[in-house]
């Protein structure tokens, strides 16, 4: 009976490829990833897999799972080639219960890989924050349907969990610490970032839209119920990268997006600002690009002990004027037009504005003053935001 039930539960052709750590593990694992068929599982044993090349998966509907995010470690410390530890380029892939350590470039990149689930996956650069670490830990890009749950990333020299140029995304119950950016949603739409612990980074949660990318027009992002605390690590990103400009001590930062709802987060001990809403600061020529935040709602969050040592040039007199700490919400004062408010917040929201007068101005041109933004109304229709249900169904307890 049991055997029959098992058969009924999975396609008849599904196979399990078990790979143990030890000699030639990289070759055996890569072979299994190539020869697997849709529906198959690649099961990694407990132990340390010492790998000298990047791995890749290009078969749809394959599950790669280990014995746990601390028990099964893919160790890329001696990696000689490839731009990431594991590259996934196929759809409906599930990654679960293993770790990637010290990849020379990115940790796990999934590109054009629709409906992917990352569950209980850890990516760690083991020497802590260093500019020589790879850029992104968990890195889905150009994908529709992304669910990241119960994962953990530390040490990324750009963003720990980075979702770029994608749609229908959920990042939940994950830990991002000691990265430049903890979690970043970039040029993406329909995303939920919820119940994550984001601590010890330079900046906690970033929601960005940048010009000159194949996919632009980020928006419909819900950031709720996260713990964003003590993001005090000095910025260690290599220059040239956009996150190299993120001030140390930024809690939640929204740049040039449309409709972002920031609600019920606990934001503590971020020395620059709890919440920052700004326009894209650099010059650009991309006519498709809108550099302004539009309708970013900063609703009821628990924010305290933020803004006490801002990493902003010439800020000391402003801090003094506000009595020793900047208020919760910082806005650069720029918006697309009067009918399209950049920020909406409750009237009690403590905040301040740089009162810049045009896009591209620097801090030096700021005329700091109190915040005056409209109150928010009902949340917009959030149906269809977040990872599709089919992905949630793949999570195991």
């Amino acid at each position, binding site marked *: 009976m049991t055997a029959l039930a098992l058969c009924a539960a999975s396609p008849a052709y599904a196979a399990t490829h078990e790979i143990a750590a030890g000699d030639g593990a990289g070759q055996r694992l890569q072979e299994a990833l190539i020869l697997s068929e849709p529906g198959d599982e690649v099961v990694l044993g407990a132990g340390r897999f010492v790998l000298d090349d990047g791995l890749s998966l290009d078969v749809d509907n394959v599950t790669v799972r280990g014995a746990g995010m601390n028990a099964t470690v893919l160790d890329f410390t001696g990696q000689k080639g490839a731009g990431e530890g594991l590259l996934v380029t196929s759809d409906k892939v599930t990654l679960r219960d293993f770790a990637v350590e010290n990849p*020379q470039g990115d940790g796990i990149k999934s590109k054009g890989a629709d409906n992917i689930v990352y569950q209980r996956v850890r990516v760690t650069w083991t020497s802590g924050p260093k500019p020589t670490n790879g850029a992104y830990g968990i890195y889905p890009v150009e994908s529709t349907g992304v669910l990241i749950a119960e994962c953990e990333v530390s040490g990324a020299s750009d963003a720990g969990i980075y979702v770029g140029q994608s749609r229908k995304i959920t990042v939940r119950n994950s830990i991002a610490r000691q990265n430049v950016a903890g979690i970043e949603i970039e040029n993406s739409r329909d995303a939920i970032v919820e119940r994550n612990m984001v601590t010890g980074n330079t900046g906690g949660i970033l929601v960005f839209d940048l010009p000159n990318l194949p996919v632009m027009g980020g928006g419909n992002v819900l950031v709720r119920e996260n713990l964003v605390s003590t993001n005090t690590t000095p910025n260690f990103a290599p220059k040239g990268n956009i996150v190299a400009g993120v001030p140390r001590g930024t809690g939640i930062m929204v740049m040039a997006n449309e409709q972002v709802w920031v609600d019920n987060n606990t934001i503590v001990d971020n020395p620059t600002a709890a919440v920052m809403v700004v326009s894209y600061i650099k*010059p650009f020529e991309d006519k498709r690009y809108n550099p302004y935040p539009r309708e970013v709602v900063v609703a009821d969050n628990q924010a305290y002990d933020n803004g006490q040592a801002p990493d902003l040039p010439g800020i000391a007199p402003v801090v003094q004027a506000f009595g020793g700490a900047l208020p919760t919400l910082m806005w650069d004062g720029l918006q697309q037009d009067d009918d399209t408010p950049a920020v909406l917040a409750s009237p009690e929201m403590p905040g301040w504005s740089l009162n810049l007068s045009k896009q591209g101005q620097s801090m030096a041109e700021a005329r700091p003053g109190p915040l005056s933004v409209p109150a928010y109304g009902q949340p917009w229709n959030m149906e269809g935001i977040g990872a599709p249900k089919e992905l949630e169904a793949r999570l195991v307890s």
Partner: protein
Amino acid sequence: MIRSFVFGAALATAAAALAAAPDRGAVNDAVIAEAGLPRTLSEYGFFTDAAAQIPTARVTPYRLNTPLWSDGAEKLRFVYVPQGTQAKADGEGLIDLPVGAALIKTFAFQKDGKRRLIETRVLLHRADGWLALPYVWNDEQTEAKLAVAGARMPVTTPAGEAIDYRVPNKNQCKECHGLNGEVIPIGPKARNLSADWLDRFADAGMIDKVPAVANRIPMWEDRATVSVAAAARGYLEANCAHCHRPGATASNSGLDLRWEQSDPHAIGIMKHPVAAGRGAGNLLYDVVPGKPDQSILTYRMASSEAGVAMPELGKATVDHDGLEAVERWIAALPQMDAARADH
């Protein structure tokens, strides 16, 4: 010098092959067409003498004007067009090869004064699309076997560097050959083939007509005499643009290094990196006109470190000739003010 000698030799072989009478055996068309992964290179019958790389009838050697550099490996390229079929000219881009066609590329290095074949990569045009497979030669040079997971092996490059040469695995083939989710050839674009070769290919009936090419990529060995822009852009097309173009592996970078791309920002001029991480090397822009030492493009070309080096696959050492061509081009670009450049 070595490179142009090799090209010269390849061209001579090409001429001989095109002129020869077609009674040199036959390729096994069924092996190309049928599902499955042939385990050995000999099953295809692409060569009458594989160790000497003597091709079977209708297997035509060719060279690219400016080729992809792979640690200085000698490359022997062949295109197979089955009897009763023809390739179609399709403008300046890839020649349109029929189902049943194949591209064959053998990589070789010198060892003890002799040519040692390392691997032969085949691209098979099957009814359901192109399939890329790598075959690794044995030490005896008698047979090449399928290596879906690739391999690593020690070789010494023409520059004298001892490297751990990487034969790509089947997925890595797709990293470079993938476009919009499909596997396609990269090399045989009409603009990167000589007019002379195309004439002879058409005369032999292998292609329906000679593709019209207005703006041909120069011969790499002529790089000192053609414009610095043509030399560098030809190099970037052949070495970078298979990934750095819309729809390909590095599309999300926004960098488009195709020969035909004319938008300065798209080819990296005063363009900020997107996801370069430490690969940016603390530099701000992909290409800073007049300043190769401040350009991420040349910084990454000059690296052999995983996570920084570009291209990510297919090389372990630095192509100093290629780097120099790109540096000369950047140095000759008119300088602009960084603040204005973004406009």
